[in-house]
């Protein structure tokens, strides 16, 4: 043993060598900004490489979060006092962070971005911006045109009103052979309001009033919309979103409401399936709007961030159309919030993608409210009761209204 030298010295020498190697690779003036986001590294890295070319003195330490545990990871990092400098935050998570003053108020730092980006409603609370919209997501109506034809419906003209949708759903369902008219979400309470509210929003309904102090959940518009939504149930396949997507892929469902990710998936997994994407149907030809759910991925800077200025610099870079567009091209999940992206030539030859861009114009985001998590839970719970036939549309929404009202009444 002794002939091989002192192992303690050897370890110390190795540690010193590693430390020196680490120092040698980094010049002292370079600064690091920690960025957590959800896109695959293969998609985001080219964008960050471009940022590095523009800002060679800044190193971006990027980390990919997963949709399953990203939220928990961010919460744990904040609790530990070591949040990332910049993070991609989903619109459903954002209100809680805003309510708890976890994100810094960016309003006065980004007045120039106001007109360059869409989707501010998901990032603003009481007129102040706590994040910068980066990518916007929405849902549209997927139509199986083969089933439309088999049911004797005009495949080139997807349903544009509730009545047309209702009739088409019933006729496709009548085809039998395991084919169902409509894909209705169930068994995953957390998404129910996202599927129902588009009909309510399109009908002039809402969740809270414009001052965010009063529930309007039990409005006649919402009740009418829920009655219509429930009328589709007898002709629907009830399952979780991914199973509905799969059923649509296999040609077993006439209509389903889903996101742009299906546009990429369907040609590869179901090359023989003929489908169209259409705007959400509106209440009637001369009434309402083809509303949908608007989600967003926004960029937020935490109070505990150590490099706030760099984080803002990176956020400004990321939201630019030319930097956000490659991310959409690579992932196909959400569209750039940059206003200029709608005119991108990419959409010219892609009618499906274009429908989603169009749908974004009438998509509505849920309110940014400090108690949004509780409001969402109440709404989803009551919608589930209605979908399972335990309550009528009116009873469910009145119950939700009473609960949300009580919740808002407790607000300081």
């Amino acid at each position, binding site marked *: 043993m002794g002939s091989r030298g002192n192992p303690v010295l050897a370890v110390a020498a190795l540690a010193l060598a590693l430390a020196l190697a680490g120092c040698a690779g980094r010049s002292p003036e370079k600064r690091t900004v920690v960025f957590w986001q959800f896109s695959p590294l293969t998609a985001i890295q080219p964008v960050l490489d471009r940022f590095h070319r523009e800002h060679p003195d800044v190193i971006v330490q990027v980390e990919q979060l997963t949709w399953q545990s990203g*939220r*928990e990871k961010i*919460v*744990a990092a*904040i*609790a530990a*006092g070591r949040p990332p400098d910049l993070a991609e935050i989903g619109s459903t998570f954002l209100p*809680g*962070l805003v309510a*708890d*003053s*976890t994100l810094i108020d960016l309003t006065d730092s980004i007045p120039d971005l106001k007109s360059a980006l869409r989707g501010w409603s998901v990032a603003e609370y009481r007129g102040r911006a706590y994040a910068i919209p980066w990518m916007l997501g929405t849902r549209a109506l997927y139509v199986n045109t083969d089933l439309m034809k088999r049911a004797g419906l005009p495949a080139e003209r997807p349903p544009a009103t509730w009545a047309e949708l209702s009739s088409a759903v019933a006729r496709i369902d009548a085809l039998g052979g*395991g084919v169902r008219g409509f894909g209705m979400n*169930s*068994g*995953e*309470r*957390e998404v129910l309001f996202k599927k129902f509210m588009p009909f309510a929003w399109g009908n002039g309904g809402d969740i809270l009033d414009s001052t965010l102090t009063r529930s309007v959940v039990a409005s006649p518009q919402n009740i009418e919309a829920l009655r219509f939504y429930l009328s589709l149930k007898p002709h629907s*396949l*009830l*399952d*979780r979103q991914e*199973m509905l997507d*799969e*059923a649509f892929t*296999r040609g*077993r469902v006439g209509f389903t409401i889903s996101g742009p990710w299906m546009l990429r998936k369907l040609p590869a997994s179901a090359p023989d399936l003929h489908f169209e994407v259409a705007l959400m149907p509106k209440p009637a030809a001369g009434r309402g709007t083809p509303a949908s759910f608007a989600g967003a991925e926004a960029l937020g800077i935490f109070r505990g961030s150590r490099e706030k200025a760099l984080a803002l610099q990176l956020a400004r870079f990321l939201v630019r159309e030319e930097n956000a567009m490659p991310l959409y091209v690579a992932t196909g999940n959400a569209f750039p919030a940059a206003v200029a992206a709608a005119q991108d030539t990419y959409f010219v030859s892609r009618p499906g993608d274009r429908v989603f861009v169009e749908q974004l114009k009438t998509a509505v985001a849920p309110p940014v409210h400090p108690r949004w*998590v*509780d409001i969402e*839970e109440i709404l989803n719970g009551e919608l*589930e*009761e209605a979908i*399972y036939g*335990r309550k009528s549309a009116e009873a469910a929404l009145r119950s939700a209204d009473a609960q949300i009202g009580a919740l808002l009444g407790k607000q300081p």
Partner: protein
Amino acid sequence: MSGRARGAGIAGLLPWSLCFVVFGVIPLLAALVLSFYDMNPLRPDLTRWIGGANYARALGSPAFWHALRTTAIFVVGTLPVTLALAYGVAALLGRLRRGETFFRAAIFFPATLSMVVISLVFKSLYAEQGLLNGWLGRIGVPAVHWLQDPRLALPSIMVMDIWASVGYYAILILAGRKTLPVEQLEAARLEGMGALEIERRIVLPHVRPVLLFVVLLNTVRSFQIFIEVFVLTRGGPLDSTLTLVYHLYERAFYHFEMGYACAIAYILLLLVGLILLAQRRLIARRALGAA
């Protein structure tokens, strides 16, 4: 044992002990402390002492009692079935003359898979237009809403859990059976004992310590059910699969009520501890009675 050997032993145990302290003892104690605080992980600066209010809130919460009831149904529904099946499978494996290795591996296979993977496979299996309903459709049975029907969602998860657990426990019981001397069995046969009598009077008392271990282990695991619910149902439909651990996860990470979630966790810990103690005493008393 020489001082040097003892030193080496302690050094060998050190990494494990350190991990146990850092990832086991400290979080356990921290959670206990937190359970007496109102703590929002997003605003740790506003954390305040509220005494036993979190415990009082849990005990007065219908959602807590509902989750406890669901968890209890899961435990009571899976434990005896898993134990009986594992015992039966172990008995069959023990009697095999040929192909034991193959069947042992086949039975143990689910235990090698992560529960997330198993849950994902069963999610496809249980889908409205999934494999299971496809098979039923071929024999004329209408589609069953396995995970969509509030009456069937929990039993469906229970069936999956039993399938995933039986193999592991069967191998443990089989290992216990293998330690039974062959001579003892032959002597019993020579005395004219039948297979059932041998099983009841010789094998069962012999494997009782293993059974106790299986019962305790399965009880703890069943009370902790989370992954299955997280992947398959998220507590729904209509809260029919809302288990205690999933409930505390929602309170901690969706409502940011970390102190309250810790209080629920400690109530669960206390409950499981009491049940384990009762089980041990019960089985030990029966063992004494049998002796």
